[in-house]
């Protein structure tokens, strides 16, 4: 009965459903509450699917943390692409520091050592001691950077579990304990609404995007609770800054998401992806402004540099989560990365076609790559931008963040919404099939041209006189946030 129970062999939902039906029929169905068989089975299936989805997310979260560490290291060292790549296996005198593979039992690490040695011979340092400026010769890593670095975060997690949970003496105890729950619970809840593959999702409701955004937006409340209840002036400041910042950026976020929804015609995330599949063009080529806006707003929503004023180390030590220790801090730290991951996945779903392979018709055999892998690859690719911003940019001051959000991002997001509406009503509804190739090409090239023109904003007269780009040499009073004349 179980063998060919499902129509679609790949559909994990169906398999789980079969299993829970079986369980439910043989337990509830035999009892006097047999009319609840179906609902219990459905509930169990949903529960198992949520756990599986979240399990998949948590496992692949390690990839994100590893990427951040490695990329930040390479960015900060700024040694160029070739040197950075080479640094992965270079050792001195043919010896690589650590050589952990020799510790593996039964000699299983020997092939690893042989590969490392081969790479060192082919493209490593000279086999003499190099008396060169220390600055140029500082990479002592082995080629198998993957695994040992990978487990760093598990070690971190275990460390957090063993640390003491302290509540400050005069803190408001109930609010102090509730705040992390709010933050973490709502963050985890987000992931129920994110599908990982056409066969592996936990939620297919009509309003999934709406729920998702609603749940995502509860976290600022938890942040404010945390900042206020710690009885600490620093955390209070951090909490207030955070609440102001996150609230300010909710609106452009919602308007941008709305524009994608308008273009795709449904609040259901799966249908947004299917729209991109059916219409043949990824949304980013139709709404490039929306993509950029979504990225910037999400960087602000997850409080990463350049928008991490609420937890700015320079002034507030750790901001609103200073007083938390142990796993509560660890989970809030994880929730920052979980929200970043959710943002990357959402970007992939909204703008990059979700689980669709690029150029499906032209590249042969590409449909053999599993859909779930496409989703993760796109999300991880977007994360590179997050890390890049963090490495290269400075921290923007709170009132400047708020000014940026209200004065610039909100109007731009409304412009984006207008464009999406225009595209849907005037262009798409007449076609109802695939976009003609002209439209995305036109939109993308105009946007690129505008972007290049706006970013190359040199003022030759100013450069000549060596005055500064933000002229502060006037007799008018200028408050520190105002730098535009």
């Amino acid at each position, binding site marked *: 009965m179980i063998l060919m129970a499902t129509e679609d062999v790949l559909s994990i939902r169906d398999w789980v459903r079969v299993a829970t039906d079986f369980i439910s029929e043989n337990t509830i169905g035999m009892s006097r509450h047999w009319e609840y068989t179906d609902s219990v089975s459905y509930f169990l299936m949903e529960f198992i699917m949520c756990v599986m989805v979240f399990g998949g997310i948590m496992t692949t979260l390690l990839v994100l943390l590893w990427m951040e560490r490695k990329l930040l290291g390479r960015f900060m060292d700024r040694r160029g692409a070739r040197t950075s790549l080479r640094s992965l296996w270079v050792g001195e005198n043919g010896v690589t520091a650590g050589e952990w593979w020799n510790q593996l039992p039964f000699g299983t690490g020997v092939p690893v050592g042989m590969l490392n040695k081969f790479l060192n011979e082919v493209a490593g340092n000279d086999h003499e001691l190099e008396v060169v400026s220390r600055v140029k010769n500082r990479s002592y890593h082995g080629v198998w950077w993957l695994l040992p670095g990978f487990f760093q975060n598990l070690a971190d997690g275990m460390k957090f579990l063993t640390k003491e949970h302290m509540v400050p003496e005069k803190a408001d105890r109930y609010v102090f304990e509730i705040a992390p729950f709010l933050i973490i619970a709502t963050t985890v809840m987000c992931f129920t609404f994110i599908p990982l593959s056409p066969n592996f999702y936990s939620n297919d409701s009509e309003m999934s995007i709406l729920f998702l955004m609603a749940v995502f937006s509860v976290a600022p409340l938890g942040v404010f609770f945390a900042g206020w209840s710690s009885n600490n002036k620093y955390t209070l400041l951090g909490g207030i800054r955070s609440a102001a910042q996150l609230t300010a950026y909710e609106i452009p976020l919602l308007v941008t998401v709305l524009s994608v929804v308008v273009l795709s015609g449904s609040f259901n995330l799966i249908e947004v992806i299917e729209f991109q599949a059916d219409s043949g063009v990824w949304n980013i080529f139709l709404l490039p402004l929306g993509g950029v806006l979504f990225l910037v707003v999400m960087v602000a929503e997850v409080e990463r540099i350049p928008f991490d004023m609420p937890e700015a180390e320079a002034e507030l030590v750790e901001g609103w989560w200073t007083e938390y220790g142990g796993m509560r801090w660890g989970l809030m730290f994880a929730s920052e990365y979980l929200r970043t991951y959710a943002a990357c996945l959402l970007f992939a779903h909204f703008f990059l076609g979700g689980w669709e392979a690029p150029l499906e018709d032209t590249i042969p055999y590409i449909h053999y790559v599993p859909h779930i892998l496409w989703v993760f690859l796109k999300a991880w690719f977007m994360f590179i931008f997050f890390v890049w911003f963090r490495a290269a940019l400075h921290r923007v001051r709170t009132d400047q963040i708020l000014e940026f959000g209200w004065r610039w991002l909100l109007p731009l997001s409304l412009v984006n919404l207008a464009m999406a509406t225009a595209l849907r009503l005037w262009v798409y509804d007449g076609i109802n099939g695939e976009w003609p190739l002209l439209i995305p090409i036109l939109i993308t090239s105009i946007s690129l041209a505008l972007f290049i023109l706006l970013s190359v904003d040199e003022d030759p007269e100013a450069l000549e006189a060596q005055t500064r780009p933000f002229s502060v*040499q*006037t*007799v008018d009073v200028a408050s520190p946030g105002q730098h535009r004349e």
Partner: protein
Amino acid sequence: MANEISAKQVLSAAKEIVADVADFGDAVNAEVRHHTGGRRKNAYVYIEVVASEWRELALWLKKTKKVDYCSMITGIHWPENADATWQVVAHLMRTGVTNPTVVNKRVHEIKVDIASLSGNDVPMEFEITMTIPDTREPSVPSVADIWVGADWNEKETWDLVGIDFEGHIGMRRVLLPHDSPTGYHPLQKQHKLRYHDFNEMYDDAQGFGRKPEDSGRVK
């Protein structure tokens, strides 16, 4: 353009100042001295003044001689010298720094033409000393309102040496803890250095241990 002030410019400017100071009479004695800077000998103005005339001299220096910078005000305790037990040494400088000029709403920085400096524009160093006879509460007038740079210098001098400055607003402990005992000024000579020789630290019973009177202290 010359790279630095020449010794001649400095010497002639110093002589001018010394000549003008003579107008003050007996209370003030000025002379030109030289101090070395490696292989150089730079002239500077050395003035001895009676403590009661210090403020007048300071005001005159600031107004007529354009002395704009107070480098340091410090004190020395000479317990063996009954009529000059407390000495205050003030180091002032004339830097010639002015705000940059504004032309057409644009600021132009000042790059001094060194060779053309003369008279009151020549940067100059001053060393001014005054002494006070033996007393339990030495005090000289404060110049913190003339040069704000003297403010914290005077706080430090009172804190460490014990010389008070009349007219100084907000005198408080600045390097020692705020709750140090009244009358405790470590740079006075009756406070001997503990542990001068490192061997003593090992032999002392207390040694590296915390002094009992320090327990419970909040800084």
